[in-house]
């Protein structure tokens, strides 16, 4: 799906353009003997009615009950459903469940923060972030350049989007930005919100720092927005 964003240049002039995710298909893949690509299919392996606790009939079985279950397994085949297991399934959805694997209709979300030892440090209400790149929002030109060779050692670049023109005017606009970035041999931080905030692409999404990379060759340009939400740190 094509999405629109507004982006500003160094003169604070903005233009509406589009972006799309950049994914590279794997050139190497597992193949069948005849050279064809295998088709992945999901099959039903088990269901909540066949958990060990449900098969024993207790929420918290004792060790003795676990031991006795071995005999049940030998004498009966109640742990499998011949009509259900092995069936192909298409799309699946995830839902919240309680401990008994029954769906819940109302939940309270909390965010738990653990220290490096794995101890719970804090439990808090997660902050819900609204997208700050759509509608009237403009991605700001911060003028903060980071040389290419330094950025790769500073942050983990997790995903990228290609920024594209929509007509002749925006082609010139993006070509110029790409040329500036290529000449400086640097990435530039793009700011959301008032100009210094991380970018949030979707309502409820994660915040990312955006780094703009530009290249030009003859009459063509390539402008990539790299995203990162992790920094490299030395082990203390």
């Amino acid at each position, binding site marked *: 799906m*094509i999405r629109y964003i507004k982006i500003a240049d160094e003169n604070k002039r903005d233009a509406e353009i589009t972006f799309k995710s950049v994914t590279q298909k794997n050139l190497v893949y597992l193949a069948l003997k005849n050279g*064809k690509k295998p088709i992945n299919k999901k*099959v039903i*392996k*088990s269901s909540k009615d066949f958990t*060990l606790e449900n*098969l024993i009939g207790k929420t918290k079985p004792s*060790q003795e009950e*676990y*031991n006795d*279950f*071995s*005999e049940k*397994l*030998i004498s009966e*085949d109640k*742990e*499998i459903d*011949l*009509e259900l*297991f*092995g*069936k*192909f399934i*298409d799309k699946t*959805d*995830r*839902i*919240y469940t309680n401990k008994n694997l029954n*769906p*819940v*209709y*109302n*939940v*309270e*979300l909390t965010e738990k923060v653990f220290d490096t030892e794995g101890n719970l440090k804090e439990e808090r209400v*997660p902050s*819900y972030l*609204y997208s700050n790149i759509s509608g009237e929002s403009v991605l700001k030109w911060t003028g903060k350049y980071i040389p290419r060779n330094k950025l790769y050692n500073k942050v983990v670049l997790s995903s990228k989007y290609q920024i594209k023109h*929509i*007509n*002749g*005017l925006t082609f010139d606009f993006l070509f110029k930005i790409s040329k500036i970035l290529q000449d400086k041999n640097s990435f530039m931080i793009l700011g959301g919100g008032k100009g210094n905030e991380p970018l949030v692409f979707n*309502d*409820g999404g994660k915040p990312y720092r955006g780094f703009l990379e530009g290249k030009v060759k003859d009459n063509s340009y390539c402008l990539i927005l790299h995203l990162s939400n992790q920094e490299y740190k030395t082990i203390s």
Partner: protein
Amino acid sequence: MIGQDNIKQILKSYKSNQASKYIPVRGDEILTKVFECEKYNISTKYDGHLCFIVKDEKGIYLLNFNGKPFERENLIKELDALLDKEGILVGEIFNYKEKERTRSFDLVKNLKNKDSSIKIVVFDVINYDGNSFEKSLWVEKKELIDKLFSKGENVFSLNEIEVNSRRDIQSEFEERVNNHNQEGLVVKGFNGPIFKIKPKLTFDFVVLGYSLGYSDNFSLLKELLFGIMIENDEFLIVGKVGGGFTIDQRTSLLDNLKNIKVESNLIEPSGSRTPFTFIKPELVIEIESVDIINYTSDQIIKKSVVSFDKNKYTKAKNKPSVSLISPVFKGFRDDKKVEIDQVGLVQITRIIELKNEIVETSNKHNSKIIKKEIYSKEIKDLKMVKKYFIWGTNSSSDDYPKFVFYKIDYSPSRGDKLRREIKVSNSQTQIKKIFSDQIKTDIKKGWKLIKN
């Protein structure tokens, strides 16, 4: 047909990479959503089915994106006279009625009727005479298509006009769609994307459920689940809508919805990862959407049918349904009732056909165990068990493999006590090999065969 699998792949790939990437725009959004380009090519949108014209050394085939043929001898004969080189061209096959709007359901109804007027409008070329046109400019493709089909009677080249501004597109939309009831426009931006412009669609649907969790706040309404009435007290789920509500409505509507909640044995997931809470089928809503589709890139859309009896919904089956693109809640229709003539099938079929149902599970007999072996091993009075099965599913449906291999690995002293493994195959030889290989790997010293 040469390289049948290869051709099927090309058709599917075209469907998902080209045909499905037209940008949908509503008629009232032309000035804001269509990109500003130097010029545009406009054509009327035909409401039929995507059709590939495939010519190889053996003949001419008319195929849909799944590689299934459209049986129209007259069109194949005409194409045989028009095309002298091998190639794949793309068009829309439709039912023609003079001065009337094209409808895809008319095509389905009349395709097999020899007296009906079925035509193809050609709008793209993938390859022809050994040349690939996948990266060619539209001008080059158009030149070839015009040349090939200049003498076509029922297979013809797309008729386009060139305009310079979005205002011009608006005028054309007004003339062709609003005044002459055509389905919509296809607009190619010069050096830009392709837009399909349609009038906004509005529907009346029955509300079947609600979910909480707007912006992760579970005291606010997130979405409504809606559908159509197909029989008395039987409903086909169509979709969910989460847009178009004010924050006030997300609170105020909840009281009324909670008062009419009922039980259901169907778990229908919502966007907040909780199931919808079902309600009595009493409310009618108006929904607006940009488009409606009855299949995804590779299959017919199917959704649940539920029956409502004694204040409880029960899932009856799955049936072909539709999906709305960008649905928006416009309001409740208090003036309408939940009755077949007001929220029935016609809400959908006045715009798009519902695909024919394919019976899938009726030909499934009970599965039958073909092979089974049970092993055990005792250590300090604890009995570990390993069970191996092969069963035949006895189904000719695509929903099941022919054979299933299943393994149970139970150890009462282990953290993860009950482990399961499954492998499937359509070959009995292969599944038997999987079975024996697994036992060879697993069963070592101390394990005893108890049953087979």
